[in-house]
């Protein structure tokens, strides 16, 4: 399956890029497994927020082809 991965704010700074396009094999791939693919050296930061297709979710969420996954820090708007 093909997944678009987006990074915002300090997560983009940390990754050194704003976006990844990832092809994954396997029936069920979770956000956590996706993270290990895009960031093999570093565990998912504890306070990172995760969105799949613009809805908040958690690292156990199973992905499907075409999903857009975003990693970002706590929000500070308003």
């Amino acid at each position, binding site marked *: 399956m093909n997944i678009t991965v987006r990074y*915002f704010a*300090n997560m983009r700074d940390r990754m050194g890029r704003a976006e990844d396009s990832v092809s994954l094999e396997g029936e069920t791939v979770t956000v956590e497994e996706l993270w290990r693919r895009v960031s093999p050296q570093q565990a998912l930061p504890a306070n990172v927020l995760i*969105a799949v297709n613009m809805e908040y979710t958690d690292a156990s969420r199973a992905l499907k082809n075409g999903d857009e996954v975003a990693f970002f820090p*706590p*929000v*500070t*708007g*308003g």
Partner: protein
Amino acid sequence: MKVIVQEGPFDPYQVTRDYEAQSLPVGKHGAVVTFVGTMRDFNDGHNVSAMFLEHYPGMTERHIEDVCQEAADKWDVIDALVLHRHGDISVSEPIVLVAVWSAHRAHAFDACRYIINYLKERAPFWKRESTAQGQRWVEHNTEDPGVNSQGTKQKSA
């Protein structure tokens, strides 16, 4: 209800007045509460000279709309307008406007406060401040103690 996320300055009072003139039925609302968040020149003990506000286009609008709908489900809201900036923001400029029209003032106050509080909790925006020490991402917003403590009116230190 209307949600706008835009780059560039706006006049929250003109926006409120224009929206009311164009969109609100005449004589039905008895109360309008607006909240305007503006950029201060200080935060967390540092002087701040400028700010950049990043957002997640699409997700941001969706979550502000959800918060507005929740407020309209909880209280008697005739209409609501939210305008939030992104991009570069200068000291003293408005960042966000929340305006709520209701027949009754208690509902207008509660709904307006709900919208700004949950917008700040859930809408994907991130502030990067410029200070004398360089740029830094703001790590957390201040909370509204009135929400978690059911409207206590103690002055915070």
